[in-house]
């Protein structure tokens, strides 16, 4: 019967041996529809076949963890009987094809993952990577940036979830493959967490939301293949987001979850109906039988194959208790949604798809979900590592440096460091009136209404570091995210991660991946921050050119007393400026080398996890004791940029400091040594702060005072850099917006 040849397999992104595996699992040749179903469920995106063996090494348990990896999102206990549900997910490939819709539907997808857990989403963040805004690809990149930012804004603003933070970096390695990673966090009563499982034989299975079209068919398989000129044809109809529909789904589902009529729910994300039916069945240890002819359809003449594989947005699959149908339908009707009964839960553990009664697919859920291939792919250490590790020290000779002031201004104007106001001003970051730290002022901080607490969230990752040293780069990413929430006064309690890498079938890439995951695991254990979930995005390559390996880590921190929240900016003149941590003058992999010398090389900053842990303890204890006026993590651009940024958005509070020289002047000012922060404290609190630092073994040095109208930096007593705060802030504030002035929307 089957006309399945290698060409067909190729189109489905299936290898010959994977096909044989399918035949074994079924005990027969699959039908075309079944092949389609296997192809998406066994795609890299859905099956994690290349990453699974490594992800197992991540610590996923802890006293606060209520839900680890495996459900639609993870959850941690935040006290007061509440849970924070959060996850990060990538939408890289769709955003490259259609920036606005790709980014918008990415936001839509992660929001669904959160409210399917029963949580009310209260915060969004995003981590973005683009090519350089200048140069040959500059024009295209600027279009992509405008589209992605507008898409994130268009979706989040409309549905009314504040986008409270995130980060953006620009580097040529992302020119042909931008990264769009979106994070969402929601709050739910800990005892009301909803699972995505189908149980209870005879319980009805409902479809609700947008109608099914031919959108994104094979989106999942596409997200698992590199781009090349041919992928143009492979392109599925682009998915268009409908935030209003999602808003209706969000409210209706949360209303339904207040009743006990719901058994389980899952959004139809990647691999749509196929993924939701089989995963829910597998989780519930049961089967699901649906009739595709009952599925609401937007287009005519859709085949079962197309209906099962469609990735139309804003659709949910629900299993409800038998006998409660009327009640459930009424709730959706209130929101002008029509829940359609498309099938039922069965005992036999089989995903059975019928079309007007005739069976078109019959597959054991376990075959799709658990028996998916798992690969321990070959790994080899990339040879480039040795070349980049060597750094021509002579460029660091002070004689060859531009003036420190020029270097600082160049860094402040670098899009990666410059103010992102042009971006976050387009995001509604205040809706729901929980936002305690306004966008751009540090980690995203939202209060938890009805409790005295707040949550701080930061997403971070440095592709350059990870390129130079995958293991260390991933550790530094987790450390920076944790440090950022600590700077807001929050104790890190959980993390999620999005691992953006190249083609895992290349041993060098697989090596980077394995190293990064191990580093991440070590850092999580040392800082005692469990991973509750995440997402893996592989094949981030264009024409064989891989992006920098880029793990993005989202860390969630808890602030017991929301009134103790700390932000980046100085609060008043006359406060003491203190630098926490040790300066090692490390320039390897720094923004300085890249921006000022056009060099990407050297070793990324060392990371001593005990020191990082101590710094985090100090920051959070000092904050809760009310000792901190401001706190700012030291990262891209080093201490000079960190000090300057602490003076920005203060309506003119300058600063004068004297720093100890470490190795070179450039290293002192622009080195990116880890585990450091710049804080300001009231003079009367300096003693207490220093005592606490001593107690916790954190190097702390009072380096100067806030005040005046300039940024003045001395090194070992010698004046090294002095500039007008207004001039510096002006450069930093307008650098990014300049690229987009007067372009058509």
């Amino acid at each position: 019967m089957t006309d399945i040849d290698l060409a067909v397999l190729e189109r489905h992104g299936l290898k010959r041996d994977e096909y044989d595996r399918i035949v074994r699992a079924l005990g027969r040749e699959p039908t075309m529809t079944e092949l389609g179903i296997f192809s998406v469920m066994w795609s890299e995106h859905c099956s994690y076949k290349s990453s699974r063996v490594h992800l197992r090494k991540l610590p996923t348990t802890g006293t606060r963890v209520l839900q680890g990896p495996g459900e639609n999102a993870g959850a941690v206990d935040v006290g007061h009987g509440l849970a924070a549900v959060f996850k990060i997910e990538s939408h890289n490939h769709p955003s490259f094809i259609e920036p606005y819709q790709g980014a918008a539907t990415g936001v839509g997808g992660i929001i669904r993952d959160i409210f399917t857990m029963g949580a009310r989403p209260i915060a969004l963040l995003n981590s973005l990577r683009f090519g350089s805004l200048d140069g040959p690809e500059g024009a295209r990149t600027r279009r992509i940036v405008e589209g992605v930012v507008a898409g994130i804004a268009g979706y989040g603003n409309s549905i009314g979830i504040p986008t409270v933070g995130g980060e953006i970096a620009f580097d040529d390695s992302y020119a042909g493959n931008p990264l769009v990673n979106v994070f969402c966090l929601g709050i739910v009563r800990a005892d009301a967490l909803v699972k995505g499982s189908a149980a209870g034989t005879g319980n009805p299975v409902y479809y609700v939301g947008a109608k099914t079209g031919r959108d994104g068919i094979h989106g999942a398989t596409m997200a698992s293949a590199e781009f090349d000129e041919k992928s143009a044809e492979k392109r599925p109809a682009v998915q268009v987001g409908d935030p209003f529909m999602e808003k209706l789904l969000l409210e209706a589902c949360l209303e339904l979850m207040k009743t006990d009529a719901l058994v389980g729910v899952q959004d139809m994300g990647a691999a749509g109906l196929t993924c939701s039916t089989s995963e829910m069945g597998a989780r519930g240890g049961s089967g699901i039988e649906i009739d595709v002819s009952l599925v609401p359809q937007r287009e005519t003449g859709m085949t079962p194959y197309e209906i099962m594989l469609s990735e139309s947005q804003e659709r949910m699959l629900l299993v409800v208790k038998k006998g409660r149908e009327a009640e459930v339908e009424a709730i959706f009707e209130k929101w002008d949604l029509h829940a359609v009964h498309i099938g039922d839960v069965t005992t036999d553990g089989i995903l059975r798809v019928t079309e007007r009664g005739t069976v078109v697919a019959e597959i054991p859920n376990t075959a799709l979900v658990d028996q998916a291939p798992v690969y321990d792919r070959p790994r080899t250490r990339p040879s480039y590592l040795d070349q980049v590790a060597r750094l021509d020290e002579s460029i660091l000779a002070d004689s060859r440096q531009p003036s420190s002031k020029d270097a600082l201004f160049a860094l402040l104007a670098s899009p990666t460091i410059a103010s992102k106001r042009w971006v976050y001003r387009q995001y509604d970051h205040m809706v729901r009136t929980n936002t305690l730290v306004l966008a751009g002022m540090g980690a995203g901080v939202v209060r938890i209404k009805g409790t005295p607490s707040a949550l701080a969230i930061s997403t971070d990752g440095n592709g350059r570091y990870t390129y130079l040293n995958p293991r260390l780069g991933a550790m530094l990413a987790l450390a920076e995210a944790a440090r950022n929430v600590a700077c807001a006064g929050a104790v890190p309690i959980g993390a999620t991660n999005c691992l953006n890498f190249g083609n895992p079938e290349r041993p060098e890439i697989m090596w980077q991946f394995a190293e990064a995951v191990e580093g991440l695991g070590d850092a999580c254990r040392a800082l005692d921050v469990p991973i509750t979930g995440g997402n893996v995005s592989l094949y981030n390559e264009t024409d064989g050119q891989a992006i920098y390996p880029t793990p993005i880590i989202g860390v969630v921190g808890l602030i017991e007393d929301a009134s103790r929240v700390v932000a980046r900016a100085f609060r008043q003149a006359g406060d003491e400026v203190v630098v926490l941590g040790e300066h090692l003058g490390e320039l390897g992999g720094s923004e300085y080398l890249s921006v000022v010398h056009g060099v990407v090389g050297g070793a990324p900053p060392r990371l001593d996890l005990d020191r990082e842990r101590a710094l985090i303890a100090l920051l959070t204890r000092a904050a809760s004791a009310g000792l901190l006026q401001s706190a700012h993590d030291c990262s891209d651009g080093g201490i000079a940029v960190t000090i300057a940024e602490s003076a920005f958005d203060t309506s003119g509070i300058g600063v004068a400091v004297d720093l100890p020289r470490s190795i070179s002047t450039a290293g002192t000012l622009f080195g990116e040594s880890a585990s450091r922060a710049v804080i300001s404290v009231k003079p009367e609190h300096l003693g207490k702060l220093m005592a606490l630092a001593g107690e916790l073994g954190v190097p702390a040095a009072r380096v100067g005072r806030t005040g005046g109208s300039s940024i003045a930096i001395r090194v070992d007593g010698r004046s090294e850099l002095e500039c007008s705060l207004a001039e510096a802030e002006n450069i930093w504030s307008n650098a990014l917006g300049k690229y987009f002035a007067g372009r058509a929307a």
Partner: protein
Amino acid sequence: MKARVFVTLKPSVFDPQGQTIADALHSMGYGDVGDVRQGKYFELELKSGSADRAKTLAAEVADKLLANPVIESYRIEVE
């Protein structure tokens, strides 16, 4: 010389705007209204002399700026 450019979503692409309008009209009792699709409409004043030149120019502009080829197609009229 005036060129009018009509940009519409490709038929296969979902049009939430049109859908919402259709739903609203139905709830307002307009049962006779079926499918609704929303597009963009541009009027360009062109200095170019001939109708053909105008059409070519408009097409170029549509390709470059007015329409997004990934999800939209366009039609041009010159008067």
